[in-house]
């Protein structure tokens, strides 16, 4: 996602993990952990002019 935003022209791309995010169901949670799935906050700006 980071690269896609930069490729689109965004600058100052910042990411941070959303603390406390998890899936409710254990089976989904386990599968998500296996794939390194996490929730992130992403901010970026479109340069002026």
């Amino acid at each position, binding site marked *: *996602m980071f690269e*896609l*935003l930069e*490729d*689109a*022209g*965004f600058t100052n791309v910042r990411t941070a993990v*959303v603390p*406390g*995010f*998890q*899936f*409710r*169901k254990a*089976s*989904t949670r386990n599968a998500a952990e296996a*794939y*390194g*799935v*996490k*929730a*992130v*906050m*992403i*901010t*970026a*700006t*479109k*340069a*002026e*002019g």
Partner: protein
Amino acid sequence: MTGADQQASLEGVLKDEILRMYQEVADNPDAEFHFFHGREAAEMFGYDPEWLDRAPAGAVDSFAGVGNPHERAELKPGETVLDLGSGAGLDAIIASWLVGSEGRVIGVDLNPSMCHKAQANLAATGASMECHEGRMEDIPLPDASADVVISNGVVNLSFRKRRVAEEMFRVLKPAGRISITDIVSGRELSQSIVNDPKLWAA
């Protein structure tokens, strides 16, 4: 079937699955899903309890985000905010409070009935929003029409994330910004997940 045909077919099935799943959250907020939703999820992600008390129950109960895009959006009075995948409208309602009467909130959602629901929820707070039925890969707005794009747990649902990033860039004004929360994977998903719209929509 060519690769492009196969992707178009999968996208069509995925669209139906996304519509079904999030309509179910809106229609049956007391049901149990594999993700946390409603007030429980919003509190988990740090939404101000005063916001949740003040917002219509219909917007809070159907909340299905994965974080809090307002935490870093720094919305200011008078700004125009696009909520991409506006759902039942909780994030749009909060945005409307932050940008005030001089500001403007625009929603885009795949599901026209969610647009109607979000607009009704905003109206219940005395605010209003435009809401357009549309896809995030083809945002139905002119170039340079928003100061800020917010989104919550939506971009990950697209097969064409590069296109979504380009569209967010297009609709932002110069010096505009995005504040989105979303799901990312540290590993490439297996083909069985990619080809299963139920898992992808999850």
